[in-house]
């Protein structure tokens, strides 16, 4: 089982959600986050005074999938979230030791 953590543009959330639904990956957790990578931030001017806003708002999508679904899911996210400009985000993938469904106590793949 793999945990997929994708940092995407906030305006791409709907597209990513739809794309994941289309390939049959259900269930995700999202959060509003702030950060920056290569995209260094923007400058805003208020009454002639410039402020550099370097931590930009992004959306973090987290989901856990079976090993076999990893490529399908990441492909769906990549395609849906890409604009081609700096600031499109990143995907991090890591192994998951165990999953437990709290309601039933099921473990492993059947709990995904």
């Amino acid at each position, binding site marked *: 089982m793999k945990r997929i953590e994708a940092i995407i543009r906030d305006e791409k959330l709907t597209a990513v959600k739809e794309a994941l639904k289309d390939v049959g990956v259900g269930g995700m957790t999202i959060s509003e986050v702030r950060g920056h990578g290569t995209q260094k931030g923007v400058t*805003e*001017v*208020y*009454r*002639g*005074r410039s*402020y550099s*806003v370097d931590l930009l708002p992004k959306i973090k999508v987290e989901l856990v999938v079976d090993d076999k679904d990893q490529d399908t899911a990441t492909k769906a996210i990549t395609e849906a979230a890409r604009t081609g400009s700096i600031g499109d985000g990143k995907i991090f993938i890591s192994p998951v030791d165990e999953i437990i469904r709290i309601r039933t106590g099921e473990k492993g793949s059947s709990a995904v």
Partner: protein
Amino acid sequence: MRRFSFFSAMLFILIAISTKVAFADEAVAIDTGDNAWMLVSCALVLLMTPGLAFFYGGMSSVKNLLNMLMMSLMCMAVMSIQWVFWGYSIAFGPDIGHFFGSLSMAGLHGVTPESMSGTIPEYTFIMFQMTFAIITPALISGAAEGRMKFSTWLIFIPVWGTFVYDPVCHWVWGEGGWALGMDILDFAGGTVVHINSAAAALAVCIMLGKRKSSNINPPCNLPMVMLGTGLLWFGWFGFNAGSALSAGSSASFAFLITNVSAATACLTWVICEWIGTGKPTLLGACSGAVAGLVVITPAAGFVGPIGSIQMGIMGGIGCYFGATKLKQAFGYDDALDVVGVHGVGGTIGAFAVGLYSTELAGAENGFFIGWDGAGISLLGRQCVGFLAAWAYAFGVTMIILLILKAIMGLRTTEEQETSGLDISQHKEISYHLELEASGNLKH
């Protein structure tokens, strides 16, 4: 016979006096139309202070937002009481040396339901002027964003009102005031309200010192600034058209002129920044609208429509540079640009009255209208008026602040400023997100 003629003469005099009194009573009979409009104006002007609170609050850091709102609200609370106790008497009581009124009307002593001010009951006039005495110290608060002890601010309001606002109000509008005697024109308070508060704001930001650069944040809520601008623009109709003190054509004239100037300066500011920094901003449009309202305040009942458009352009350009360049050039930290907008705008307005005022509006002709010596004389008197207000308000505010600094201190600690004045001065914050608010209720 001699005796008889003496009595008849006395009788004649008495009859003459009583007729005169009766005639005088008739002359100052209440005009209910005037009074109705003035009561509405009182409410309109009072609403400007919460409007100003939103205007300033939206521009401050989110951690100082409540403190910013509170500073304005406290002016409503404190000045309303100060005005009744002695403020009205110092501003409008019997003149002493052309400089301030005596305390003989303290506690509104001698004001009865029959007392009239022109065609309106004196009670209405007292209430109308009270709303001006409230918003003027509130305007100062923008300079103090994020670094003034709340306790000191609370003491500063009535002390400043007593020693700066009330006397300057008496000079310009009080019976016997020297500026009124010199025929210096200030229709609705360009000098009394805007220059007065801006000179004080300059003293406040110099005495407080600069904010730490890590505490200087972009505006926390621009929609709130827009809300404040809308309330200010709306309330300003009471401020300017109400200053006609009647519901006649002078009020209608001032109402129209006020709107035209605000609109012009709003557009002018946006064009200036579009050229200057590349983008038109909402904050710029809001700032421009307020600049246009400030600049027309001393002139609203005196200048014509085209004059008001020219004044709006001057105000838009002048205040744009005032707010974006002036403080950087001189290095004082006037956080929300009280000097840049109200100081520059108020001064341009007071000066431009000498250029554009017109006989059409019942005033004397300004220089650009009459092109004669009378216009130059008016221009000169206007300059005397605003220079005196700048000097007096700045000087006396400095003295007040020096005394308050020695007694109770002016500035919050660095630690308090870093955590924000909302939490350090008031122990509350603006927004509790659901997650943060999940703490247990303690009684």
